[in-house]
């Protein structure tokens, strides 16, 4: 090969081709999706429109859960936990109860950083807030993060005990102490309790907020 301009042009256009085809085209095709209602109805001309007064999905991320997402990011949870669900006939994501439907691009539009993940050393978490809810879910997550063996014997997830502090019970036990049974090998010494730090609390709120419990016009939840 002697012609340098030709070599350079070739090198340039090869990457320009995939950059245009993959990155720019995606950006144009679905880089500006908007929230929508769970289903659409037809107007007088038969065009699909959003019914008035219904909730728009996906919900915006924010508040305490967003602080928790920062903890999730800083702990590198993504290296073992994905946040995506494949369609029912492709893999066991739905059959395992990880989510009720496949996730689609619109599910991720309000996320400032998308954490799809590529590894399932642990289970998928895209709908973990749908599986574990409310105070029961909160308690489960705290026990599990403090030491996964408490709730999930045989798990290879590391303990995040450094997000908790062990302190002497001063008078009455604290309301937010992690409820580890006294006979558990992971229970704190007698007269002590385990208290989640701020980071543990917001992380659990984030996990509780991860929910795919709504339909979208393109992927309704089927019964």
């Amino acid at each position, binding site marked *: 090969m002697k012609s340098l301009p030709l070599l350079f042009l070739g090198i340039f256009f090869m990457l320009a081709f995939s950059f245009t085809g*993959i990155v720019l085209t995606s950006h144009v095709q679905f880089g500006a999706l908007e929230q929508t209602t769970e289903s659409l109805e037809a107007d007088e001309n038969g065009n699909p429109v959003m019914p008035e007064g219904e909730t728009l999905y996906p919900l915006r991320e924010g508040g305490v859960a967003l602080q928790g997402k920062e903890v999730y990011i800083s702990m590198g949870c993504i*290296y073992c936990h994905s946040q995506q669900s494949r369609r029912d006939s492709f893999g066991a994501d739905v059959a395992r109860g990880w989510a009720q439907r496949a996730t689609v691009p619109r599910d991720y539009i309000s996320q400032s950083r998308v954490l799809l993940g590529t590894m399932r050393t642990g289970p998928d978490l895209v709908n973990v807030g749908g599986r574990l809810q409310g105070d029961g879910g909160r308690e489960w997550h705290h026990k599990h993060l403090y030491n996964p063996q408490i709730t999930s014997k045989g798990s290879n997830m590391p*303990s995040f005990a450094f997000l908790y502090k062990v302190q002497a019970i001063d008078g009455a036990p604290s309301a937010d102490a992690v409820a580890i049974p006294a006979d558990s090998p992971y229970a704190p010494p007698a007269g002590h309790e385990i208290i989640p730090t701020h980071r543990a609390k917001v992380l659990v709120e984030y996990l509780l907020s991860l929910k795919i419990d709504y339909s979208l016009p393109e992927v309704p939840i089927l019964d």
Partner: protein
Amino acid sequence: MSDSTDNTEGTVIPYTTNDPSIRAELSEIDRSIRSASIFFIVSAVGWLLLGTIFALIAAIKLHEPSFAVGTEYTTFGRMRAAHLNSMALGFGNNMIFGVCLWIMARLCRAPIRHGGLLLIAGAFWNIGLTIGIAGLIKGDITSVEWLEIPKYATPLLAISYILIGIWGVMAFRFRKGEHVYVSQWYFLGALFWFPWLYVIAQIMIIWAPAQGVVQSITNWWFAHNVLGLWLTPMALGVAYYLIPKVLGRPIYSYYLSVLGFWSLALFYNWAGVHHLIGGPVPVWLISAGIVASVMMVIPVVVVAINHHMTVVGLHREGWRSPTMRFVVFGAINYTFVSLIGSAMALRDVNLVTHFTHFTVGHAHHGAYGFFGMILFGGVYYMMPRMLQREWPSAALIKIHFWGSALGILLMVFALQIGGWFQGLQMNNPEIAFLDVVQNTMPWLKARSVSGFLLLVAHVAFAVNFFWMLFAAGKFRTKDTPTLLHTQEEGAA
């Protein structure tokens, strides 16, 4: 591209170096780039050792989850990211800067100008990376795969890339001779492609994030191309240079070289989206990625034929040369890892391998079994010419080779067999998830054993390297090359 009579491209390499004027020219070039190259290789060896330690911590944690959990700094996610970045950006890139830029200078047949530019770039690179990896261990990790380095360190890395790119263009500008050898195509392409990929990925994911899964698509366009358009062309360029050099025989076919280069350039950069098969992205995009991944068979088979036909009949000579042992091992693994990669992109196969340790095995197979091994071969060839002295110990080279070769093969087998079962079980909802996890344990333990083999190999390499570098004259001054079976005369 070239006129059809030009079938003697292989002769452009002065592979018969008995001509004293060419030898003098080469040693003048070597001298001009020596301090920069040695700086890069010393850095690479340091990152290699550090990255191996991070790797072992992460590997052990996967089957001994109570290991090193006292502090957040050693939690699995951060150790894994520290390992990846130490190896890919610390070891890999310093090796590339050390070996490939030197080969580039030799092929341009002119002593390099502005060697200081390379040293500045090297300083920026290693300082930026040190800040970046310390930052991600501290907790500023971005959790974007292959782009974990925190925001405050990436500009240093970008400056370094740009300086190296400028240097590459200048080296090219002042080259002597008409021909552009196949290794130079690969190096030029990679030097141009990587900064583009890196800057776009940084902007669209970190600095001004695109909406939703466009981030993920950009992420895998970038991350797969780190392998495809950066590590792979660099290693292939090194192989294309060293095989004819060491064996004294030109590359089998110029036309296959051209076909291999352009088909790689065309197909590889579309392949990355196969990491999102089944995910929340449009099906047309996935299909395009699968087609490109399967088309990769063309450049891979073409390069395999070209390399094999060059080496054929000279296996004994190759086996005696440390350089060729590593390069041939790497070249063979390039064929295997790429064909496995093409298969993994098929939907039915991907359904099993996706989200499992199979992919982790595949990544190590490519990045280490292919890229790392060929670059090791490059260092074994380069250092004696830089330092005008031989490798002190053939035994340490053997330990390095066997530790690396057996270590990486054990790792690939363990993770891919274990990962395959993991995938089959995960797709069967009757099997409880924690049982799936438990069934991966023997394979993960085998992977840790492979990690210890690699550690032994890397320590042997480092000892031999620094012995050579600092203990000049302490070991017996040899006037013959260090070969692995010394009873016969042979190639270097």
